[in-house]
């Protein structure tokens, strides 16, 4: 198992796509900084009515989260779909014949850097935005930093979860495009679908979808459907379901 993990880690580090994805993640704090700078200017020039409308805006690290999550899903999916695309999966499975061990090694190798990059991206976003916003009452940036820690941890954790869902879907579908489309559906399409459902089903569905889970996990959601532990359990269920389905199919199918 340690050999399999070392191999997956080496694989991940030796292709450019990994660094491209991390570069995209690293760019999000910069994009958030521009938005914050623009927001701060607008606030200073704004009328009292406009300010009242902006006051309760979502924190920027949460707004940018889906982009970080999607990048992470690409990294997770590519860890296995690039092998199906090239045929290298056969070499991988002759080197590590236990397929569940092979997938577990991939999951561990992806989770480490993705969690680190996720935490770094949301923390950097928060820190930079906080500096720019200053004491303006935009979002919650005027609250003490320690109050933000649970939110940052939850957002970072959700980035790791989405990456593993991407990996699991990659193992199931054996296609990068298929895996990414699935993750996009979870992150962007289903929330829209949920919004069109009649009440109370709209909130019930939205509450268990990926985008809302991180805020509920942090206890930062208004009107949460789930308590933090419940949100954690649902997030974990996504990961277990995706990786479990991937593992079962990987073991059963001929390579």
């Amino acid at each position, binding site marked *: 198992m340690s*050999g*399999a993990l*070392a*191999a*997956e880690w*080496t*694989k991940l580090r*030796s*292709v*450019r*796509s990994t660094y491209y994805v991390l570069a995209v993640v690293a760019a999000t704090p910069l994009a958030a900084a521009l938005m914050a700078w623009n927001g701060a200017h607008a606030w200073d020039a704004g009328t009292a009515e406009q300010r009242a409308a902006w006051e309760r805006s979502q924190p920027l690290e949460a707004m940018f989260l889906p982009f970080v999550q999607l990048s992470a899903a690409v990294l997770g999916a590519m860890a296995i779909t*690039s*092998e199906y695309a*090239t*045929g*290298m999966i*056969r*070499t*991988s*499975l*002759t*080197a*590590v*014949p*236990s397929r569940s061990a092979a997938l577990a090694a991939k999951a561990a190798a992806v989770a480490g850097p993705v969690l680190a990059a996720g935490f770094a991206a949301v923390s950097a976003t928060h820190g930079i935005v906080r500096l720019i916003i200053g004491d303006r009452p935009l979002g919650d940036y005027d609250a003490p930093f320690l109050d933000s820690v649970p939110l940052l941890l939850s957002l970072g954790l959700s980035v790791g979860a989405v990456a593993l869902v991407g990996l699991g879907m990659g193992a199931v579908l054996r296609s990068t495009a298929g895996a990414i489309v699935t993750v996009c559906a979870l992150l962007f399409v289903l929330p829209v679908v949920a919004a069109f459902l009649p009440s109370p089903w709209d909130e019930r569905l939205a509450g268990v979808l990926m985008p809302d889970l991180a805020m509920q996990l942090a206890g930062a959601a208004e009107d949460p459907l789930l308590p933090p532990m419940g949100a954690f359990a649902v997030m974990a269920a996504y990961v277990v379901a995706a990786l479990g389905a991937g593992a079962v199919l990987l073991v059963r199918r*001929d*390579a």
Partner: protein
Amino acid sequence: MIEVRELTKRYGPTTAVDGLSFQVSPGTVTGFLGPNGAGKSTTMRVLLGLAAPTSGAALVNGRRYAELRRPLCEVGALLDATAVHGGRTAYDHLRWLARSNGIGVRRVAEVLEQVGLAGVARKRVGGFSLGMKQRLGIAAALLGNPGVLVLDEPVNGLDPDGVRWIRRLLRALAAEGRAVLVSSHLMSEMEMTADRLVIVDRGRLIADTSVKELAARFQRGVLVRSPRQGELFGALAAAGASVDVLPDGGLSVSGLDVARIGELAAARGIPLHEVRPRGASLEEAYMQLTGGDTAGLAAEGARP
């Protein structure tokens, strides 16, 4: 040591491998021959644990592949040389393989040297020619210094230099006591390389034999040419041989050996332009065994 026992593999209604049994012993190169689609690659995939057999077994050193703890140190395999990530360097490709089986990274440099890729170790594989990728695939197979090698069509698409290199390498690996299984759909490749031949067609075993035995089995009479053919025909027939006239004018004689035919002709003063044992080439033998071009075999007769 490879043992394939009563191996059957079905894909839906198609039977790719049908009750196949054979062995590959240490110290020999075994050619695994058959037309495209005969089940060679499927057999190799089952042997390497990539596909599950419908019934029967394929064992390496007495165990199923999945039971091997450090498989690369027991079996080296090359299935498809182009199945590599083009963005990775040759060195990194071998490095992850080495790590997966706890093989020291120093070994990577050794095998790169052995296959002649040391100079391009830090280049991305995407820029490699097919020949270079084949060499990289061989390097990967040799990485764990395994006693068993399984190579699927390793000379496909290679230039003559590359073909000769692989031929010599396979002979050398067998001479070191390794069991080498090499598949091919061309007999001409195996003639020069293999000690033993396992010939399959439509998933079934057609022949499990040595190269020499196969050649002897397809020995068919003696070819004789003479400007006084009619006279010779009579003399040979009178001596008890059965004689056929070949379409190109020569005589195919069975029942007498070359020496007797020569003596008979000399006794009658009949000049001979050609007398030689008429063996089917291995290529023809193979074609006949696999039900390939039998019409061509009959018409062509002996081949120089």
